[in-house]
């Protein structure tokens, strides 16, 4: 334990500075704001993550957001256990038929105003799983998606930039 403490003092902070919102993410969010007349949610967002059929690669990188390097809680981004406490539904995977109902129920349980963020290529267009009979189809056909963070899986830095756009969006 002493080594941990010594490192904490001598090595300085592991946390990286804020990368700021991604320009393309800002644009997409601004568009969603205009189209759906949503108001911004302020400086703090509670996020409920739902795996709707992912290979778990996206979950690994979403997990990394809470590690000391990215530490997204400092931006007011917090992962919550219940959809009833959430502002943002963060969805991964190509949406399997077997997860469809659970996903819809989680969305319905969230209080308005609420946002949907699709994470990974699967959430955007089903990725490599497109065309499978066990897959419903892209997330945007099931829920109103405000922002996509693409990648297979998207690296944590891209996720941070995307999520910051939700906070920084004008409106």
């Amino acid at each position, binding site marked *: 334990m002493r080594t941990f403490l010594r490192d904490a003092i001598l090595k300085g902070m592991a946390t990286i500075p804020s990368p700021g919102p991604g320009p393309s993410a800002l644009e997409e969010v601004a568009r969603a704001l205009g189209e759906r007349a949503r108001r911004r949610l302020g400086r703090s967002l509670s996020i409920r993550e739902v795996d709707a059929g992912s290979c778990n690669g996206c979950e690994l990188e979403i997990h*990394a957001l809470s590690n000391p390097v990215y530490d997204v809680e400092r931006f007011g981004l917090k992962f919550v256990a219940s959809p009833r406490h959430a502002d943002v539904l963060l969805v991964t995977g190509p949406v399997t038929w*077997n*997860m469809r109902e659970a996903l819809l129920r989680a969305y319905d349980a969230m209080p308005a105003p609420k946002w949907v963020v699709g994470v990974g290529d699967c959430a955007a267009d089903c990725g490599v*799983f497109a065309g499978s009979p*066990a897959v419903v189809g892209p997330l945007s056909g099931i829920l109103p998606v405000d922002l996509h963070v693409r990648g297979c899986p998207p690296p944590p830095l891209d996720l941070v930039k995307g999520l910051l756009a939700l906070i920084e969006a004008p409106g």
Partner: protein
Amino acid sequence: MTAPLSLAAAIAGQAAGPDGYARLEVGEAAWEALAAGCAAGLHDLSALWADEGLIRMALSDSERALRAIASLRPEGGVYPSVARHHAPALRLERAMRDLYGMRPEGLPDPRPWLDHGRWPGRLNDARYEFLPADGEGLHQVAVGPIHASIIEPGHFRFTANGETVVRLEQRLGYVHKGIEVLLAGADLERGARLAGRISGDSTVAYGWAFASAVEAALGWRVPPRAVLLRAIMAELERMAHHIGDVGAICNDASVIAIHAQCALAREDVLAIAQACFGHRLMMDRIVPGGVTDDLSPEGIGTVRNLVGRLDATRAEIRRVYDSMPSLQDRTVTTGITRPELVRQYAAGGFVGRAAGRAFDARKTFAYGPYGILDFALSTRTAGDVDARLMVRLDEIEESVRLMSQLLDRLTPGAICSEPPALVAGEGAALVEAFRGDVFVSVRLGSDGRLARVHARDASSFQWPLLEAAIEGNIIADFPICNKSFNCSYSGHDL
């Protein structure tokens, strides 16, 4: 009762293919006798799948280092159930019935498994009867498919008496995305991409297993440097998950200091994987014929430094862990897997090794460079959360030793070879992922496309043991038990 037939007797000296598996065509009697052999402990059931009118069973005998794939041609899809003799086949047969319409005769549990009654064009009932548990003062707790934290979906039905779990029943299949359907008819490039997404946390292991199976089918030779690079990536993947999960287990016991250190170490590995191989999880880096990314001379130094740091962190975490009785109070004697169940289910990885099953595909059926490398197989006998955690810390140490040998052996050369003429054929491979052995079988059509691919995750034989391990524990200890298993939902559901 059917008299058991041993794998050695069934193979009867028949030579194995280049992939190490002998191919046996069997009739119903021999099929049942082999299934009874699994139950009698003569050999292990490694996989069971349907393949265009055939039903096939991969079996292995670790003691004699024998492996075979037995095939039965059933009349109209009806065949004698393996699960009737050997319970570990149960979920595999239920899944096969749902997906391929096979009809295992005498299947002890006729409920669907992956088919939740939601697929279009299928008329299965969406209702599902959980197994009964009768007794005074029992109540049920239903958890999932969506869990409280950021993990994959699955349903857990606890029956408890007060705090104590009397029965846990899992219901999986929520992330079934039809991977095997997509693989049928795919070309090799798409096949490799799909195989790398069977379970994202084992993308290197699956990539390697798929590539090896294809290479065995085609007689495709892989350059020596590529073989070493595959192992380097596989050990990086193993170390990243082991250190990350050790932290996550301690986090479930509220020791945040260890969790933070482990998360930093894990991030260190992923950042270096990105720098050296161009992808944090090293997805799509292993392809049939070799690898896509070479390790530069600077990269070799970077990886050496990384494993040095990682080993120092591991040693310090071990010291801190040993000095915290309050942490061990949560892990020691929690979630015990019994050795006889581990043997019966042939549970791989740290789940098996923590309960005395000395099996590691890298040792038992050595592949790639592992046969000539010096590393120890770590086992424990307690089978509890603590034992699984200890095995994983030990394995980080062994991966560090392996890594330095692998880097020492790297000599300049090609990292990928041209494909030979594409012909019909089949091959199989068993690769040790961080959580245990993954099996991939590939059959190629004469057009060079994949006719049938089957993948069996280590989790398939670990999930049922979690049901047993939690019995008699309190519900509040389920998260720490579950994390100490860390089974894959995606790899299981396919």
